[in-house]
């Protein structure tokens, strides 16, 4: 097994990490699947209000090919098809039955299946929708064969769910999932040094390669791992899949049924008892967090995901499809701090030594969501490069995206990156640029230009 040591990066230590305990969550009154969670698709709705669906019944497909199906995570009755401006599909809401019924898929002989049969099975069952491809970080086109499939079996993001805990009791699902994927293309699994002696290894499959990555965040990002193992060139396509979504594949293979339940971490400084919860995707956040969050006289922010990559959620939002943790932090819009540019500010975290974080050792910080500065042009140099463990000139790439210079973006390696890879750089940016948004928009434009 190859071991990659990576130095660049930054572990942000936040208070409120989830303890390895699992709590049960009652079935919610309503579940929702949001097309917005699946980047790069244009949904075409297949169900009507009032129709009853099983777990695994397609709710919408991608208009481009009509092959990629997105299926119901629960069985019940379609309560509403929510549309926004210009009839944009926002979500499909399902009122669940008390007894859950799943659609069955034919998985006979999955261990020896041909690549195309396996692909059709994944497309049919809705699991394919969870894949993402590089370039562009979007749902892949099923007609283009990938060079390889990359899976990162750990996350180094702050407050992220620990896959070691999540996978407990589901090791077989994980292994079977990886084995099934290896029928389609070569699978690369990235593990952390802590996972070397756990039950997810060894993988006794010929078309699977495991590599160990040791280093600070964002080493758990699959993009970093691809860049080290086998960087993507223009014209190549690599699929990626979240480790927890490999479990969906494994369950499908072993039972013939899809099961979209996850163990997600509920974490953050404002959570009373941070721990894990077993829920199905699309669960309403308000029901999930009920009684779990501190009563405060200041505003809180719910985040669908971790504080670096996750999306700010409203009170009526639902658990995102790719989300592995829900975090709650103080919003901070009611904090009034005097003379921040000169005060020592011991409670604030910074990688800059103009603060005292370097003195305070391994303190877990309770950070709020203020931007803590005004937007500027890029002033400091080599700031991003310090935490960006890929062989890419980050600030030059960002500038090429801002100026819309597509040739230069290509030359500087935009095909290798996804917005999440820029999260740490965005965190430390002293000019407070929204790097992830810039990269996302750049990728979207590039994809349009290239299609």
């Amino acid at each position, binding site marked *: 097994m190859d071991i990659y040591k990576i130095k660049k990066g930054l572990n942000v230590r*936040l208070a409120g990490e989830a303890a390895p305990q699992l709590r049960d969550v009652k079935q919610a009154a309503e579940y929702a699947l949001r097309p917005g969670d699946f980047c790069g698709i244009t949904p075409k709705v297949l169900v009507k209000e009032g129709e009853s669906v099983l777990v695994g019944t397609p709710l919408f497909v991608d208009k481009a090919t009509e092959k990629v199906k997105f299926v119901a995570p629960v069985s019940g009755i379609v309560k509403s098809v929510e549309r926004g401006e210009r009839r944009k599909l926002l979500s499909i809401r399902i009122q669940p039955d008390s007894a859950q019924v799943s659609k069955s898929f034919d998985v006979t002989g999955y261990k020896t299946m041909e690549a195309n049969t396996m692909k059709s099975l994944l497309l049919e069952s809705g699991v394919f929708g969870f894949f993402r491809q590089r370039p562009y970080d979007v749902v892949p086109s099923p007609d283009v064969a990938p060079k390889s499939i990359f899976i990162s079996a750990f996350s180094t993001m702050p407050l992220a769910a620990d896959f070691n805990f999540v996978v407990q009791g589901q090791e077989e699902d994980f292994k079977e999932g990886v084995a099934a994927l290896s029928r389609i293309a070569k699978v690369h699994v990235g593990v952390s040094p802590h996972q070397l002696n756990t039950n997810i290894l060894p993988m006794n499959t010929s078309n699977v390669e495991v590599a160990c990555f040791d280093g600070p965040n964002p080493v758990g990002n699959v993009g970093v791992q691809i860049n080290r193992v086998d960087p993507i*060139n223009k014209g*190549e396509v690599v699929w990626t899949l979240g480790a927890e979504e490999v479990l969906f594949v494994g369950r499908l293979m072993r039972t013939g049924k899809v099961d979209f339940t996850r163990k997600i971490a509920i974490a953050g400084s404002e959570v009373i008892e941070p721990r894990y919860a077993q829920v199905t995707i699309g669960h309403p956040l308000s029901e999930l967090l009920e009684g779990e969050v501190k009563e405060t006289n200041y505003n809180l922010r719910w985040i669908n995901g971790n504080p670096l990559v996750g999306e700010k959620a409203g009170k009526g939002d639902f658990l995102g499809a790719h989300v592995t943790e829900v975090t709650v932090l103080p919003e901070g819009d009611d904090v009034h701090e005097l*003379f921040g540019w000169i005060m020592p500010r011991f409670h604030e975290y910074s990688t800059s030594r103009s603060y005292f974080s370097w003195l305070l050792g391994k303190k877990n910080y309770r*950070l*709020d969501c203020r931007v803590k500065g005004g937007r500027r042009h890029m*002033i400091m140099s*080599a700031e991003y490069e310090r935490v960006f463990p890929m062989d890419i000139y980050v600030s030059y790439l960002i500038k090429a995206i801002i100026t819309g210079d597509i040739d230069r973006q290509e030359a*500087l390696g935009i095909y290798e990156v996804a917005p999440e890879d820029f999260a740490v750089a965005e965190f430390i940016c002293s*000019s407070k640029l929204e790097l992830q948004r810039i990269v996302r928009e750049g990728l979207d434009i590039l994809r349009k230009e290239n299609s």
Partner: protein
Amino acid sequence: MIKKFFDTIRPHFQPGGKLQSFHSVFDGLETFALVPNTTSKTGVSIHDAIDSKRIMSFVVIALIPALLMGMYNIGFQNYKSAGVEATFFEMFFYGLIVTLPKIIVSYGVGLGIEFVVAQWKKEEIQEGFLVSGILIPMIVPVGTPLWMIGVAVAFAVIFAKEIYGGTGMNIFNPALVARAFLFFAWPTKMSGDSVWVSTESWFGLGRQLADGYTAATPLGQAANGQLIEASMTDMVTGLIPGSIGETSVIAIAIGAAVLLWTRIASWKIMLSVFAGGALVAALFDAFGAAENVSAHLGVCQHLFLGGFTFGAVFMATDPVTSARTEKGKFVYGFLIGALAITIRVLNPGYPEGMMLAILFMNMFAPLIDYCYVQSNINKRAKRMKQE
């Protein structure tokens, strides 16, 4: 309380209010007093507490030792030239009185322009000038008239910064552009022997010196083929004639420590400026023409004299105008050091080469970066061809 104050006066500055045209000023002052509590909308929810305000403030802090030492030195030079004994405080306060108007003019003119531009472009006021505004008085001779400083600052802020798009977009270091503007517009006031010592008495402090009193900087002496009078100790502590902030190596070293520790300045640039300067100085010492005094100053004197240390620590490391690639920084710094000493030695018209060397390399920094970025691009292209 301060928040309440801002809340009460805010309506006047909002669109439709009486003082609408001072919106950017209000905004600037508010963010100066209170950390803005806007929260992130997309992307990361949490942010590092560092921002450009704090970075710029720390550069100013790093400059303070050199500024204080410069003030003391102004008094010291004046009393020394008059041949009068004086206490430490008399010397210091004399220097303070002479320097303060320059700082006020520099900030007044520069920030005034910045406020107007920010208002016009409907942007926030950028804090870049906090640093330039203090740098400019520190790199001019003490005898520079205030109006010249004002004109130079206006020129630098408008033509070296704002026309490029403001802080972060400029090619040349604004403070050095101001210095260069002064140097070429009024050469007699910027060099020679009569501008380095303050000759007037203010508020009973200092002594009126005779008209036409001259005191050359050590480098000026060397350029004229004279031997340098100043001792090594004076050079290190900074008790020699020179621009206000540049003389004391110790004070600048304290500033350098602050900048390096906070990682605001790049150690790569700083180190390589000294390396480049030392190497070229050593070469000239070994092979230079015998009659050229500047060539035989030796490494230490070259590095300690004139604006070399000050430029290396505070000007070459300006993140905006220096090379932005990590390897490029070594090249950039090395060439600044080497060029500065070369100009000093080979061009008797310019006793000091640091200003020109840095401006010159500011111009070439993008080219250096281009080479390194291009090599990354080529590597990627090559990788593609192989497969």
